[in-house]
């Protein structure tokens, strides 16, 4: 058989980044000689830990940032987009972690915003836009209500509108930055189906994530970034969780400490009919009751923004509340953070920059936050020498990487900042530890460190209340799990009864009976 001599070479790459380096103004090298390709019609996973450079790379591709050196090729031609608008016109659209939607506008209006034809003399024709959007919805399976103000819609639906907005511009490359962070497992599955549909129609998708399970579920190929460099490109069917994890972290990880069943001890925290007012006067927590016992991890799962923040802030004394809360039989009514902490409650806040640490203070100063009285001498003088010894001790015990006890907390990496918070809180030898999103944004090694620590504390008999939007974390650690939805618990399950699907349904607001049925 004769091979055709002149065969049109199919376009190899839709987009290609060649030798991209990005150095930020403060000297941080975000990307170093990165080569990255996406073919037409594929879902490319961009995997890496926080700070690996995933978002920077895609921001360069979508015209939001310009590279320090290197070139972007779009359909084989070198391009240099000076704004996201130019990239969008060329056919590249990105959905960011923080949406760009106008709250009081409807879905349709948001999609129409900035669409072509919106001149003074050629008004936007909402009707034609609607037809086109509906056509896109049926083609991709991405459905969303178009006539409700977007601020009234759940985050998962807002995300769909954001994606529709991009698809409406007829992009050929869709970039999604950590899109699953705000979704229930069911919504994640639906999103994945949509992404497959989009790829099947010949368009390409870049899917940014740090979650191994997800990247394996939806992509064709995976590019792994570590510290601003590409450490591997893999065909999805020919790789594994283990291999990807190793690429991402750069070292082999031991097996995670296994949770062993354990008799739970006496009750430490009792919460009854707790109601916490939210920001707009509406209650953010609507009458929930639970107990936490010594030697157990009580997990609260749920999508962020369903009242978890308010619940925790109420328990630690930062927010007024109604109902009954008892710690070791003592009522917490009317007590402030210092008094509650004195009763044996330690708190790892969800926002370690805003609430856990004072970034402009040094390690020593941060390590004595909340226990200043222990370092007071004559007439309230602070005994800095002993505070520094204490900080030194924390650094050693929790293997915190810091330049020293006088290094500003800002100079520590995220994982080490969190270790500092955790170490400080545990040094108060609490009866109960409230850990709110304790590993959010941490690298794998630090995440593992914290999780193992929590398990060890549980085995040593501490009561732990773990609030986490990360289901893997809940599954790994919790003995009992409550799922929080719009200020209430949709269900409380023992660990044996847990499965992803059930928890997912509860997270979406179904009751336990419905979820079991």
């Amino acid at each position: 058989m004769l091979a055709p001599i002149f065969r049109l070479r199919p376009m190899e790459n839709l987009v290609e980044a060649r030798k991209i380096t990005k150095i930020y103004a403060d000297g941080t090298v975000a990307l170093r000689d990165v080569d990255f390709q996406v073919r037409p019609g594929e879902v490319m996973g961009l995997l890496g830990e926080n700070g690996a450079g995933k978002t920077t790379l895609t921001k360069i591709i979508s015209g939001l940032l310009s590279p320090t050196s290197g070139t972007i090729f779009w359909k084989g031609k070198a391009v240099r987009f000076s704004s996201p608008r130019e990239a969008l016109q060329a056919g590249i659209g990105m959905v960011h972690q923080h949406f760009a939607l106008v709250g009081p506008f409807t879905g349709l209006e948001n999609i129409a915003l900035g669409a072509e034809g919106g001149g003074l003399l050629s008004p936007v024709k909402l009707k034609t836009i609607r037809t086109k959007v509906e056509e896109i919805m049926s083609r991709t399976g991405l459905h969303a209500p178009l006539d409700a103000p977007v601020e009234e819609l759940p985050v998962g639906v807002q995300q769909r509108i954001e994606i529709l907005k991009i698809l409406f511009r007829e992009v050929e490359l869709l970039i999604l930055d950590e899109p699953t962070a705000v979704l229930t497992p069911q919504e994640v599955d639906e999103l994945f189906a949509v992404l497959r549909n989009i790829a099947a129609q010949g368009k390409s998708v870049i899917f940014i994530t740090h979650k191994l399970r997800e990247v394996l579920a939806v992509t064709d190929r995976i590019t792994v970034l570590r510290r601003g460099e590409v450490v591997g490109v893999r065909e999805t069917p020919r790789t594994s969780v283990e291999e990807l994890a190793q690429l991402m972290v750069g070292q082999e990880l031991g097996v995670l400490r296994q949770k062993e069943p354990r008799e739970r001890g006496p009750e430490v925290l009792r919460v009854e009919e707790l109601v916490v007012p939210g920001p707009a006067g509406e209650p953010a927590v609507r009458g929930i009751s639970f107990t936490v016992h010594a030697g157990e991890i009580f997990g609260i799962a749920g999508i962020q923004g369903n009242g978890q923040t308010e619940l925790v802030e109420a328990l630690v004394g930062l927010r007024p509340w109604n109902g009954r809360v008892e710690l070791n039989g003592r009522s917490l009514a009317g007590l402030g953070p210092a008094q509650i902490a004195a009763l044996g409650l330690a708190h790892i806040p969800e926002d370690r920059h805003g609430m856990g640490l004072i970034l402009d203070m040094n390690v020593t100063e941060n390590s004595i936050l909340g226990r200043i009285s222990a370092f007071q001498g004559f007439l309230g003088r602070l005994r800095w020498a002993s505070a520094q010894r204490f900080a030194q001790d924390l650094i050693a015990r929790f293997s915190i990487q810091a330049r020293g006890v006088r290094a500003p907390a800002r100079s520590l990496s995220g994982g080490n900042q969190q270790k500092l918070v955790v170490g400080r809180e545990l040094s108060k030898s609490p009866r109960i530890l409230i850990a709110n999103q304790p590993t959010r944004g941490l690298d794998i090694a630090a995440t593992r460190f914290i999780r193992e620590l929590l398990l060890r504390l549980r085995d040593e008999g501490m009561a732990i209340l773990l609030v986490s939007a990360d289901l893997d974390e809940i599954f790994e650690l919790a003995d009992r799990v409550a799922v929080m939805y719009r200020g209430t618990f949709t269900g409380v399950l023992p660990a044996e009864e847990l499965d992803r699907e059930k928890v997912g349904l509860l997270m979406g607001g179904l009751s336990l009976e419905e979820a079991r049925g």
Partner: protein
Amino acid sequence: MRAFLETFAALVLGILIGAAIMALWGRDPWTSYAALFQGAWGNTRALMSTVSRSLPLVLTGLTFAVGVRAGLFNIGAQGQMLLGAVVALSTGLLSLPMGLHLLVALVLAGLAGIIWALPVALLKLFRGVSEVISTIMLNWVAHWLTLFLVVRKLSDPMRGERTFQVPTTMRFPVIQGELTWSLVASLGLALFFYWFLWHHAKGFEIRAAGLNPKAAKASGIPVSRAILLALLLGGLSAAWAGAIQVLGRFPYAITSDLANLGNLGFDGIAVALIGRNHPLGVLAGAFFFGTLATGAARMGLRGIPIDMIQIVQGVIVVSMAVPEAFRLIRLRRKREEK
């Protein structure tokens, strides 16, 4: 170190711009600046005068600085300073023995400053009123109240241009020339503020509350109490500025136009900014301010018009205050984002 270099660079820049302005209007910058520094530092007498002029500025500078450390923008020093001056002066109506009289005057003036700062704190903590607004308003109340007392109640019947002079039992003894032992009050309070903020638990709480109120609160620090303390300490310090100006400097009285109290309170803001809101930096900032003030007189003698001297002073001060002012604005914006 970096802060020091920045300030130094700003100083050089300010001096250069000032020089350019003078050159532009046909004055020789070189001789003008020579006059300025000679006038301020040229001999012991000049140096004493310079130090003496900087002492009250140290205190009003501290007021603003300790406020910033607590996350406040406290511009109430002017009013508290005026009140401190008038209360210190009024203590002269009592007759007490040497030394004790001075002490009583300082205590009463300090109390007046604290009382004047109290409504600012209460309005902020219980009604959420910005300290910027309340201090501006209270500054005016203090201004007219002081003017009323000075003109109507405390004036010297023989000398219309000023109040009665404070009795000698209440004056700070002279060290040399214009310099009196009010030096101890200023220096002592600056050192105390430094020690308090960096080596005392309550001072630590003030700094924590100022840098990140949310984290401070979560860790159990009573943020409201820290803010209250910072405002009251500021009131004390500003009132002492007024007091030492009356008790430690000629004419040992308040002039009927309040001119010898001038803008000590507001100048304290610039002093604090130049000194990076650090009590020891404030000492340097005040000395620098005193230098410009004393040196200006000598520049005037060289025939430089007073307007131009003030322009040059202004340019230098502004350029030196700019780096810290920007840092504060950034800090505030960051806090509001949270």
